[in-house]
């Protein structure tokens, strides 16, 4: 076993043309070429899509979660179908549908890449976010709603003042994970039409690969993703551990 591992390691170290690999994946002058646009444009756009997509997803997700928990059967039913369908479809299919299919079908144009991309991401993520919020609300003990209602608060008042503030504390760690997933899903926007100004990291890297016949731009884009996602993932883990301790 040990010998086999050593043999593989030897083949990797000596069998691979390291100089060629570096030239095709991490050529210093091409690395330098990517800057500053890869930050000022591509990473910025990735963050813009993430921010818009997540805000929209949060708002939609909250509505869907409240519908899912509503006493009204049609609301519950709608919310269940909504989450099942959106979680059951590939995000890419939904994105293409919203960017191209829906405008054709409804004869409306969703203006701009920012608009189309963010809307699609918001809708895709809202289904997952709704489930996170629902789980958070359900984790608040029943007695909290009863105590609030017994003091005369209406259902919406109790939700807003008593249940949701507690639910959001429970939700923060899994929600941070959703944010990371959404940030990575912004890469899907690379398949819908973009102008040079609205390229996000993946499209920027891919176009760089095509122009230079060299993987360096994609590698740099990948490193920038990691700079963004790893701290967020770590933060989520930290928040989760802290939430466990405080309970």
């Amino acid at each position, binding site marked *: 076993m040990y010998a086999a591992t050593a043999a593989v390691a030897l083949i990797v170290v000596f069998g691979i043309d390291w100089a060629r690999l570096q030239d095709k994946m991490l050529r210093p002058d091409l690395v330098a070429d990517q800057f500053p646009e890869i930050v000022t444009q591509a990473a910025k756009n990735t963050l813009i899509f993430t921010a818009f997509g997540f805000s929209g997803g949060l708002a939609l997700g909250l509505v869907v979660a409240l519908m899912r928990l509503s006493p009204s059967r049609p609301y519950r039913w709608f919310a269940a179908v909504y989450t099942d369908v959106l979680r059951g479809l590939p995000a890419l299919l939904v994105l293409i549908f919203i960017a191209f299919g829906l405008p054709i079908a409804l004869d409306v144009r969703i203006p701009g890449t920012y608009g189309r991309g963010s809307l699609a991401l918001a809708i895709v993520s809202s289904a997952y976010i709704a489930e996170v919020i629902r789980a958070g609300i359900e984790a608040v*003990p029943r*007695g*909290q709603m*009863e*105590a*609030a*209602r*017994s*003091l*005369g*608060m*209406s259902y919406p*008042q109790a939700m807003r*003042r*008593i249940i949701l*503030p*507690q639910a959001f*504390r429970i939700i923060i760690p899994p929600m941070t994970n959703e944010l990371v997933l959404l940030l990575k899903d912004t890469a899907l926007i690379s398949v819908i039409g973009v102008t040079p100004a609205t390229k996000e990291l993946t499209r920027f890297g891919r176009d760089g690969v095509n122009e230079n016949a060299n993987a360096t731009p994609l590698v740099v884009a990948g490193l920038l993703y990691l700079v963004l996602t790893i701290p967020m993932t770590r933060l989520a883990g930290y928040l989760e551990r802290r939430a466990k301790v405080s309970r």
Partner: protein
Amino acid sequence: MSANATPEGTTAEGDTLPAVRLRGLHKAFGQNEVLRGIDLDIARGEVVCILGPSGSGKSTLLRCVNLLETPTAGQVFIGDTEVTAPDTDIDWIRARIGMVFQQFNLFPHLTVEENLTIAQRVVLGRGGAEATDTALAMLRRVGLEEKRGEYPARLSGGQQQRVAIARALSMGPEAMLFDEATSALDPELVGEVLDVMRELAEEGMTMLVVTHEIGFAREVADRVVFMDGGVIVEQGPPSEVLVAPREERTQRFLQRVLDR
């Protein structure tokens, strides 16, 4: 309680009406008939203790009074308002009836003071200063004014339950419902909560108290109601029901409780 003490005709109707009236109250959960015809009047200022074995429907009865459970049939009146009428503003009724739970149910994300002010502000529309004044007065009443800035998790169970009582009182309720308010407490903390409840009774609060504390019922109750199987089996002054119960079911229950 004493409608005869005032000459006929001079009494305002609101003074003689019972604080709480239950008429033919039924509640079923699916096939499970939990309440099977309850008639009960609680006069203003009266303290009624409800005893009964586990599962006899005591909590359900209490929860029907402020409509945390919807009765299957029958009527509930608070003063002259029929709570069970379809057009009744339930939130407004609930604001007039305080409820204290076995598990305290304080709001953990709010300080003690905020626990007491939030419903005053949101439901009664009181301003910040008025709500705070009322909150502090009620905390003083339960002896916990110095805990106003603490979060519930930092209080003992007995303190939490006293805060819960103060929270209900800060709404200025016409009546208070207690559902086994001391059952979740360590034995050494029961006394401080019962003391607060006793004081409240002495001050003339109308109280409907589900409890296993026979001593408290004997001392404080004006009337003891014994429930079993979703009906009232026997009721009367504690000196009768607790000392010389007429019904065999009551005798057996008391025997079991006193043996513990």
